[in-house]
Every structure is written in C-alpha cells, then in structure tokens.
C-alpha cells in the first residue's frame, strides 16, 4: 500500500482551499482501491463516499438501466449483512445512506455519527465483496424502479423531453439511452446480467473512496485497509468506444402531451470533461443563465416575456456531454418565436463575446459556488471525489477558481461559435395536446 500526503501542488490556492488541500491523505491498496481521507473537526460526523467508474455509458441495448437497477440492488443484502440489514444497521448506528447513478458513474454515500466509522466501512466493504442478488429481491426492486420511471419520465413532462433529446443528440454513443433505462429493458434484465455486471464493474480497482469528517486518519486507514484489503481486484474494464459521428444538420423532435404551455429543450454536443473548453463553457453557462442579470433570464424572461424560466445545464461527462437550454414557456407564448429569440441571444455571444463585467460576474459566482460545495463533510467528499473522477485529480478541482480567472472573453466567444452552431443543435418541442395518449 502506498500512502501520500497530497498531490504535488501545481497552482497556488486561496487560503481556505489550501487549508483543505493540506489535510488530504491519499492511499492506494494493492487491489487497486483508491482511498482519500479529508479529516476535519467541524462537527462530530463523517461522510463516506464510494465512486464506481460505471454508469449507463457502460451498458448496451437490451440491458439499458442495469447500472441504476444495480444501484438499488446494492441495498438488498450481502454475505455478512443480509436483506434489509444494510439500512437497519446503518440507521441504528446513527447514519443514513443514499446513492445515484449518472451516465458515467455510480456513487454511494453514508453520512453518520463519527463513532460509526468502523460499522460503515464494514457495511460498504461487505457489499463490494459479496453482494447477493436473489431472484425475489430482484423482482421486488424491479417494480420499485419501474415506479420510479413512471414518476420521473412517463408522468413527468420534463422527463419525457429529456429522454427524447438524448436520442437526438447521440446516434451511436451510449449517452443516447436514459440512465433509468427503457421500460422494456428494465422488465427483462436478468439475474445473470446483474451478476456479470457486479463481477465486472464493482471491483476495488474500479472504485475510489472518500472519507470526510471527524476521524483519526491513521485509524481510519487501518480500518479501510483491513476491510477492503482481502477483496480481489477485478479484470481490466473494456473502454467505451465513442463512435458518435459528426452531426450534419439540425435535428428536431416533438413530444405531444396534455399540458398548459409549450416547452423547449435545445442542446448541442459539447466537449468532454477533460477538454479545456469545458471550463470555458462553464463560464458561458453562468453568463447565460445564473442570476437575474444573466443574458437568457434578462432577455427571454424579463424583457421579452416569452418564458417563465430559462436554465442551462452543462454537466461534465467522460465523453462529449450535452450543453442544454431549457425554456418553460408562457401558456400563450409562440415556441417558434421563443426559439428564434434564444438563437439571437446566442448569436450575440458568438459575434461579440462577453463583457468584462459579465466575465467577472461569472467567475465570482463560480468561485462562490465552489466554496459552498465545500461547506459540509458530504459536500467536500462529493466535490473532491467528482473532481478526481472527472478531471484526474481532486486538486485540479480546487484550482478551478484560478483557472476560471484566466478564461478570456475571446475564448468564450470562440467556444460559443464552435459548439452552439445551428448545424450542431437538437431541438425538442413540447406540443400541448388535448387528447389523452393511449
């Protein structure tokens, strides 16, 4: 096992962030498990995060949604702690747990009173070592996930539109299908699929754990080493091929559903998280949609009164992600007019870039956002873990504020021109209909 006191510094950090960076302890077990410890004594609680490098990106047609269904199965019993015991033992030790699945990652966490550290590590390592997937539990959990899909997609307009959009933006890449999976696939995923999935992706060499909070680092490392050390490394994981062809023109789709007002989703395929342009698009995202003085809110919501809300989602992903604008329209607004108004605003950025004041504002808000993420044990573990997975090291995450400082108006302008062009966009329109879909 190798232990290091922190990554070598590359950029100077502001004092509050340097103080956090200095505390980080890194280790790697012989089976490949990466361990990061972030001790602090703010409150007598801890957060323990486990990041698995697997998400819907690693699926194939026929078993879409298995990553997410599997995330649910992780709470249904392993060798030492049987069905129902994970949450029971955790809650009775003063803890709680949750998890999420994204296109790229599956992430589990526990928040707990400091005294429960050994129990939590025991619970987490038990399910990594010896998860059991019984036919009965699989069937019951399948029903829960189908109900979740009904809630988030089939009975939720935003969910329907998101799902439609991804199939437009991606033709070949697995980002094409929804993280929750197609209903027919959820119905058919087999126990054998689950077991193979577990063997492949839930091995220690595909995981990174982060512990933040009130603990003794020496003791914590010893506990983690003892619990996880005996778990065998898994096979090397096949890389996901990005076969996405270049887009040759605008793509459009409609969703017809009973609704009070039309709605618009417009998206462009952006760069991958590791690409420097990603940070430039962060700045653009803030300038367009964060705060009442941002361009889209000002133009579309307050001045032209076409939309009641406007937001931009730019989530970093391993492979080229989606820069997405959502506009919730007024009941009497004309979608075509609204769409044209959106493109006008984007064209202005592509033609003239941002003002110095807008750049400063975006940087300051990005930097405040970063600080706020770090205010809790849970937030620190999650933020630094996500940065490590997406950018290659947690320290690069803490350096973001400095990196945003160096982004120029010309770079934002170039990125807007390069990525947000008419030929690269995909558009989903919600068309309110009276009739009930069959």
């Amino acid at each position, binding site marked *: 096992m190798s232990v290091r006191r922190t990554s070598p510094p590359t950029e100077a950090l502001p004092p*509050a962030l340097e103080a956090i960076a200095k505390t980080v302890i890194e280790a790697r077990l012989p089976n490949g498990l990466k361990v990061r410890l972030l001790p602090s004594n703010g409150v007598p*609680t801890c957060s323990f995060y486990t990041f698995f490098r697997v998400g819907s990106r690693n699926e194939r047609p026929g078993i879409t949604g298995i990553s997410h269904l599997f995330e649910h199965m992780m709470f249904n019993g392993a060798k030492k702690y049987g069905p129902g015991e994970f949450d029971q033992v955790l809650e009775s030790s003063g803890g709680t747990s949750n998890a999420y699945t994204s296109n790229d990652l599956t992430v589990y966490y526990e928040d707990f*009173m400091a005294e429960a550290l050994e129990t939590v590590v025991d619970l987490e390592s038990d399910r990594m070592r010896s998860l059991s997937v019984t036919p009965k539990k699989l069937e019951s*959990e399948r029903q829960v996930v189908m*109900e979740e899909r009904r809630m988030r997609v089939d*009975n939720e307009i935003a969910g329907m539109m998101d799902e439609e959009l991804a199939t437009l933006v991606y033709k070949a890449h697995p980002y094409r299908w929804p993280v929750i999976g197609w209903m027919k696939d959820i119905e058919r995923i087999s126990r054998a699929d689950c077991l193979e999935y577990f063997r492949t992706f839930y091995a220690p060499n595909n995981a990174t754990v982060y512990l933040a909070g009130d603990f003794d680092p020496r003791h914590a490392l010893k506990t983690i080493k003892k619990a996880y050390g005996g778990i065998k490394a898994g096979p090397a994981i096949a890389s996901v091929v990005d076969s996405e062809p270049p887009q040759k023109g605008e793509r459009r789709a409609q969703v017809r559903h009973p609704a009070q007002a039309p709605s618009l989703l417009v998206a462009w395929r952006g760069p991958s998280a590791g690409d420097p342009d990603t940070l430039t698009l962060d700045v653009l995202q803030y300038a367009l949609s964060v705060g009442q003085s941002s361009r889209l809110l000002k133009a579309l919501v307050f001045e032209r009164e076409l939309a009641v809300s406007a937001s931009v989602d730019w989530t970093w992903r391993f492979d080229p992600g989606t820069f997405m604008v959502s506009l919730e329209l*007024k009941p009497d607004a004309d979608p075509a007019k609204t769409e044209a108004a959106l493109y006008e605003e984007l064209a202005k950025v592509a033609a003239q870039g941002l003002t110095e*004041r807008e750049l400063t504002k975006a940087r300051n808000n990005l930097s*405040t956002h970063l600080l706020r993420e770090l205010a809790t044990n849970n937030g620190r573990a999650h933020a630094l873990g996500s940065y490590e997975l997406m950018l290659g090291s947690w320290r690069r995450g803490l350096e973001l504020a400095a990196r945003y400082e160096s982004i120029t108006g010309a770079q934002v302008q170039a990125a807007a021109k390069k990525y947000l062009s008419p030929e690269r966009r995909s558009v989903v329109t919600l068309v309110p209909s009276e009739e009930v879909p069959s």
Partner: protein
Amino acid sequence: MSARATVLKLRPFKLPEREKRTLANGLDVYLLRRGPLPLVAARLIVRAGSAFDQPGRFGLADFGARLFRRGAGGLSADQLSDEVELVGASMGGFANEENVVVSMSTPTKHLGPMLDVFSKLVMAPDFPETEVELARRRTLAMLTNELDDPSSLADRALIRAVWGEHPYGHEASGGKADVERFTLEDLRAFHRERLGPRIAQLYLVGDLDPDQVMRWVERSFGAWSGGPPAPPPVPQWRGIVRPGEIVVVDKPEQTQAQVRIGATGVARGHSDHFPLMVMNTVLGGGFTSRLVTEIRVKRGLSYGAGSSFDMLSGAGSFSISSFTRTETVDTLLDIALGEVSKMRARGPNPRELATVQRYISGLYPARLETNEAIAGAIADVVHYGLDDEWLSLYRERVSAVTAREAARAAKAHLFDGPARVITVVGNAQAMGPKLERFGKVSVIKPSELE
C-alpha cells in the same frame, strides 16, 4: 434523560456562542461567528407571512416580497442584479405561511456593501409599476404551468382539504384570481403596515467580526421604523374540516396516482414534540420506516413513501405522501392507513425506538453544518419561542424519549379511523371504484386549484 444520553455516548457538539443585540428601533440582531470558509449568510425574518394575507388578496406577502429584488432604494432591478451578482452574492425575498423572509449569501469581503443593498430591499422596495405588471404576468403563467405537475397538485389539494378556511389553508403564492387583483397600493400598504423592525429579527452567520458587522447593521438598518408593535396572532383551529372525504384531481393521462393523506397535527413547541418526532420517524421517517418497509421494500408498490408533522404557530398538520401505479392505489391506501392504526394502537417497539434515536441524534450535527442551516435553526428557536437549550440539548432530548412516551404521543396525535382526508391526483375514471370504500369521493379538475 441523562441515563439514556450516557448510553449513547454522544461526542460533544456545540455551536459557537451566538450574540444578541438590539437596535434602538427594536430590531433584534443575532450574530454567530464561524469559519473557515470566507462566506456569510444573512436572513431577515418578519412575522408577516401568507397567513396574514386578507381574503381576496391571498398571495400578497409572497408576491410583494419577491418584488423587493426588482427595484429598491431607487435602484432598478437591473442595477440591483448587477451589483449583487457581480460579487458572487445572492439575495431575495419570499413569504411562507408565517413569515416574510429576506435572505442573502455573500463572500465575507463584500459583506458591508451587500448589507447596504440588503437593507434597501427590506426597508425601501419601490414596487415599480412595470416590474409589478411583469411579475403579475409571470406569476399567473407559473400558476397555470404548475397544473402540469401531479405532485404539486396533490399538495395543493391537500392544503385546502386539511385547513379549509383557516389562514394556513391557502398556498403562500395565492391563486390566479388573487394575483390578478393586487394593486400598487396593496403592495405599498403591505410593506408599510405589515413589516417593521419591532416584529423582525436579523440573523448573521459566518466568517464575520461582530463589532464591525454591528456598525454596518446600525448604518443600514438603524433608520428603519414603523410597522406593527407586536406580531399578529394566528387564529385558532378546530382541526380538519372534511374528515373522511376523498378529493380526486382528475388527470386522465396519468398512469400513476399521487396520494396524500392529511390530518390534524400539533403546533410547534408542543410538549410532545420529541416523542412525536421519534414516533413519526419510525412510522415514515428514514429508509427503515414502517411505511417504506411495507410499501417499497416488501411490495415494490412505490419508489417513495413518508409521513411528517408540519408544526406551525398555533396549529399543525400531519400528512402521508406516496405514489403508485393507478391499479394499486387502493392497496397503497390500505397499507398506509393500516400502518397509522397499528402505530396508534401500540406505538414503536423498543428496537425501532433505539434505532431512530441513534439515527436522529447521530446525524443531528450534520444538519447544522452550513451558515444557512444555522441561521435557520436559530431563527426557529426565536420565532417559535423554543427554550434556550433547544439546539444544545436536542440530541439528549431525542435520546431520552421512552417507548411509553412515544406510544402515548401516537395515541394522542395520530388520526383515528376516518379523521383524515385523502387527496389523489390521477386518472379518476380508472381509480373511481377502488376509492369509494375509503369515503365520500369528489372529483375536481386541475383548473379548480388554480
């Protein structure tokens, strides 16, 4: 009490000391200094929330408070936005049932100037006519669009079915007919007559120097005057108005039913607070609650299920919330109602009790990790007149609840038989026959909740 706390061996947890200072105009200021991040949260609370809106003008407090940010002290909406957002701060107002809340978050180095802007929002909103009309059109559109969200429709229907004509019986946002009616004079009168330093408290938490901050607060808020001398009272409540009834909001396109069950609860600060909270956590709190176990884990009927006591000044309600596919709506109701009766009859068992006591008290410090959360917790103590040890002895009080106390609280405060209302959003025709045996069913359209 202390015996139990010893068993739990809780590590010490103490918030930094808070200071209270009062300006000459009566404004109470609470300051709490903590680091290490260079951020400060401020929250100003005035007892002037939606419960004090007059019939015909429901939603006025929320509409007015949201307009504070759209023109104040001679600064236009654009000027305010630009000034605040430039430094990475955020601020704005809204109303909940009881209070108008104006909050701010800012990097410490901009605290002085941001407090000046903040005070303009509170003391000198301009209500520019163009902004008022813009906000009216936008609010009306949002109220209409909300009818597409089944979950918020179910909540809307429940508030009305539970509270009826009581001032808590309308949403803070009001309805379309109200919003269409607000005049400029209504807004000015709302600000002039319902807000004032004697019924307000200012909370400042974060990386701050109390003496320096007080100089800024004096400068910014010292001239605030007027408003009521004392908080207005909330009228008495006799409990739910339509026991035994079922209100179905018809959305024929739904394949899933959103379900709520509502009943009479208790006011904030009730002497049974801790037994009740512990008991409710067993019933519908964490992932091992009885509702989650029976509805989700054992039967796969839903993705989520929970129960809660909403405790306000003078009165409170109890509710259960879940959803399931149309075909199983009656099974879900049977289970939820059955779990309430079981809990009411026997209370939690000792193992359940021990689990949730550790669960609540172990995680309690994590609920007080951010400046915003601490400001909110202190504000609750002040607003509801809770005792001084509320936060510092919270974990010990949770740990001290006995099985007998929890059972007694269940019997005293959970609804019995049909003393509840049910609201369901979904396909009325498909669900109709399944719901009749639970009580008198009435079907309404989503537009009736506008």
